[in-house]
């Protein structure tokens, strides 16, 4: 028995390393889960006189997708978001993050907009308030305005099915 101890210790170590190897280092736990989504008021892309604020969404479960026209992996999920806007009831708000070239309006006109509203976060301050580290990032916010989930990186159909759908169901969508 005794001579197996080093091997057992070694295998435990290998187990830890293997687990660590397959973790996504981008998936940093968000301190906002279970807390109120930070408030903001931003003008909407394409219409500087209209503004959007998370308070407008009180009473609704909604999804906030942080994206940018310069972000390549956002294009990857654009098709899926378009389909989701058609097929399911949860409104998707697209926070346009640091769009210094002001390309969002044109891009959405060309490729279609899956978004319920597109607040324009030109300085990137609102993104920082939400702890955004890069685009795309997607938040699920409940009826009381509390952040329930955060997903880092583009959404795939599988991720939507496995991660978002159960959460939205739980929140009563």
């Amino acid at each position: 028995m005794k001579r197996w101890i080093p091997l057992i210790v070694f295998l435990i170590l290998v187990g830890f390393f293997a687990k660590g190897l397959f973790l996504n280092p981008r998936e940093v736990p968000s301190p906002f889960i279970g807390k109120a989504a930070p408030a903001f008021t931003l003008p909407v892309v394409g219409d500087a006189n209209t503004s959007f604020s998370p308070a407008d969404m009180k009473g609704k479960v909604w999804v906030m997708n942080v994206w940018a026209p310069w972000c390549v992996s956002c294009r990857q999920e654009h098709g899926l978001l378009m389909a989701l806007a058609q097929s399911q009831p949860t409104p998707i708000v697209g926070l346009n993050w640091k769009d210094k070239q002001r390309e969002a309006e044109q891009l959405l006109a060309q490729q279609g907009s899956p978004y319920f509203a597109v607040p324009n976060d030109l300085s990137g301050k609102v993104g920082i308030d939400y702890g955004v580290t890069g685009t795309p990032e997607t938040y699920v916010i409940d009826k009381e305005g509390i952040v329930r989930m955060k997903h880092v990186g583009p959404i795939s159909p599988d991720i939507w099915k496995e991660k978002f759908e159960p959460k939205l169901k739980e929140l009563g969508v």
Partner: protein
Amino acid sequence: MSRGRMSWQLFSRSLLFSLALVSAPAAWAAEAESIGADPAIEQRMIKLSEELRCLVCQNESLAGSHAELAEDLREEIRVQMKAGKDDKEVINYLTTRYGDFVLYRPPFKPLTLLLWFGPALFLALGAGVWYFTLKKRRNLKETPVDEKQLAAAAHLLEDNK
């Protein structure tokens, strides 16, 4: 034009070129400095952001990163410091947004106890194993060797000479 003059020209040109190369970083530094007008705040900002993680390039500090987000965050730290906030308030601003992950020095709390005491725990564990191994070794009785075996051993040694 003589050959000597030609090479002199070449030499002076390459000298100028290398001088330009050497002085280029200095020019850059001067440019960067003008953004943070107040050198005291600049120094405080750099000192603080060396202890913070850049969230884009996770193995770089916020002070050393060229990522755009890092630049924005450094600017935010500058603004807050200028507004009179102390280091603790600035760190609080960042941790409420990005979590403890931004800190290279993890905070001391129940969740991080194992992180802080883990090394000491392993050291104690090792010391324990060492102590008991030594103790066991000391308790080993010397096994008596009989004459016959000794003679056989001497014989073998003898043979090998």
